[in-house]
């Protein structure tokens, strides 16, 4: 019987090994790959991301991964987006220039610097997440055993604004501005923070989602 395996989507700009190490620590098999066949055959997938939106979109197009990602999501298998991976799911981002993303989740990606109360960009460091109570009974509920007192690691200059607020699963405050720090919709869970860089709680979240 084939072992449970998570595909870590490699589009040439990510902290792939941090994620792979995190999954190794949890004894979850994973493979770093840009091969559509391997991705689609996997039991779960992670779209990571460190870097700029326009470059990421170009990279995804060059590697022909737009359709593969959409197809994987349509398969219903667990799909996790991290940081830029969250933002790429949306319609677009205003980073550097307005760029279209995957459009799997309705909404936009906006800049912190345009918010009046925000003085410091990027938002870097440990911060809390205010978890919106939701369906704990789903099998792979990411926030099981995680509370609003737990800290997660953030490093980003833009935030997402989902059109459908029901998708928002946590809010986080940066210098007086509350932004969406994670979303969930059907088989998709995506966070602005990095679970693979968030210590024990982050590992807990990965374990909850890919069980």
């Amino acid at each position, binding site marked *: 019987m084939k072992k449970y395996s998570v595909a870590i989507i490699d589009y040439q700009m990510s902290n792939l090994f941090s994620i792979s190490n995190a999954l190794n620590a949890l004894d979850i098999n994973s493979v770093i790959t840009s091969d559509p066949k391997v991705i689609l055959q996997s039991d779960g997938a992670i779209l990571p991301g460190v870097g700029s939106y326009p470059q990421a979109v170009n990279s995804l197009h060059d590697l022909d991964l737009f359709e593969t990602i959409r197809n994987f999501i349509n398969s219903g298998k667990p799909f996790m987006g991290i940081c830029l991976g969250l933002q790429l799911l949306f319609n677009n981002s205003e980073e550097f220039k307005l760029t279209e993303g995957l459009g799997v989740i309705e909404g936009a990606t906006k800049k912190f*610097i345009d918010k009046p109360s925000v*003085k*410091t*960009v*990027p938002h*870097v*460091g*440990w911060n*809390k997440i205010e978890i919106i109570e939701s369906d704990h009974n789903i099998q792979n509920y990411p926030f099981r055993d995680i509370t609003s*007192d737990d*800290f997660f690691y953030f490093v980003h200059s833009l935030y997402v604004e989902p059109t459908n607020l029901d998708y928002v699963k946590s809010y986080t405050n940066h210098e007086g501005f509350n932004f969406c720090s994670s979303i969930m919709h059907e088989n998709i869970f995506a966070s602005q923070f990095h679970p693979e860089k968030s*210590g*024990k709680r982050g590992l807990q979240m990965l374990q909850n989602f890919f069980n």
Partner: protein
Amino acid sequence: MNSSLLEEVANNVSIPVVGHGGVGSKEDVLDLARSKFLSGIAIASLFHYDFIHSNRSLEGYEAEGNTEFLKSYKKLSNIKAIGVNELKKFLSEEAIELRKAV
């Protein structure tokens, strides 16, 4: 730690500023944490001198450079050393929000 210099820098840039160099006590850390203009505080000596003082065994550190210094369990008189978890507890009790000791 020159906090007025740090404040001047933080007020003049829009990027995160981490204060590094010179905290001599947990009270120094508390003052900086309360000030809110820093995004982070980097601490070295405060933790290092606590570590060498509370770790009596040099097992595993034989290859470290200055083992004579490590064996001396010296303290610097102007530094009130403290461990990471103890510092977190102290700051937490003073209502500074931070990640719990792991």
